[in-house]
């Protein structure tokens, strides 16, 4: 669908957009850059992705190996806890289910870890069955470092701080261990539709 026909539909059915807007959010057209530290610039030759933690053996892919995995292109709405929502964002990456294939674990939780030291915690069930990806393209182009490239986690049904930029791996855990923001006020789960921004929400 082209831009013009989508815009036309939007004017006729304004309710269609607001039904996609979680409580307390507003729409943006640009893609704001959020940053809690210096932007890492890890050379692709040194990049790897690892599944570790409560697993029999770690599983690691180099960048070259990772890019040979089956990829998917998805269009999703994203919701940042700083209150902006961006509709119809297009991402290409590897489904987390694909990465977890053949991994036997008793873990119920995951800590995603990133270059620069960022971490975020999620229930394992929120990362499988077509709910999460490790994305390396945005809008058909390589993901820029300021937006988390070479690769970031994409978990669009949760607030966007869960979609860790510069992600380098997933550590499977038996307990839910708060990540960078979750240990300092932000909600352990972060469902935008239930407005789970802060502890106790």
């Amino acid at each position: 669908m082209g831009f013009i026909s989508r815009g036309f539909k939007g004017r006729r059915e304004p309710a269609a957009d607001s039904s996609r807007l979680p409580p307390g959010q507003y729409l943006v057209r640009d893609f704001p850059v959020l940053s809690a530290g210096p932007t890492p610039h890890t050379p692709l030759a040194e990049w790897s992705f690892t599944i570790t933690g409560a697993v029999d053996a770690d599983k690691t892919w180099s960048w070259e190996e990772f890019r040979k995995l089956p990829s998917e292109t998805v269009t999703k709405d994203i919701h940042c806890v700083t209150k902006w929502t961006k509709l119809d964002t297009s991402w290409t990456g590897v489904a987390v289910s694909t990465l977890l294939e053949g991994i036997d674990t008793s873990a119920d939780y995951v800590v995603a870890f990133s270059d620069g030291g960022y971490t975020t915690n999620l229930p394992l069930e929120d990362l499988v069955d077509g709910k999460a990806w490790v994305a390396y393209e945005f809008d058909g182009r390589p993901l820029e470092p300021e937006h988390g490239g070479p690769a970031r986690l994409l978990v669009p049904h949760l607030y966007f701080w869960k979609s860790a930029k510069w992600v380098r791996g997933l550590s499977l855990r038996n307990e839910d261990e708060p990540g960078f923001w979750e240990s300092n006020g932000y909600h352990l789960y972060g469902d935008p539709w239930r407005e789970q921004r802060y502890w106790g929400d």
Partner: protein
Amino acid sequence: MLESELKVDGNAIGGLLREFFTVEMTAAESTCAGCGKVHVVGRVDVYMNAPGVVVRCPSCTNVLMRVVRGGGRVWLDLSGMRCIEFTDPEA
């Protein structure tokens, strides 16, 4: 956006810290729990385009302080700052 546009210096959190500590804090001296270096608060690295304010050591990038405000509450993590020296408000 350039990285330099995302990072500002500690003077940007002067107002915020004055609210919490009730005294001017930009001249306070913080000791990094990571590398042990001492920096004047006005000279630390501050990232504010984020879900909270993240203050980092200019020498080693260790997180010195995190501030989250929302829903009528404040969460202040100073675990990355071994010590902070500031003028005694009683003096």
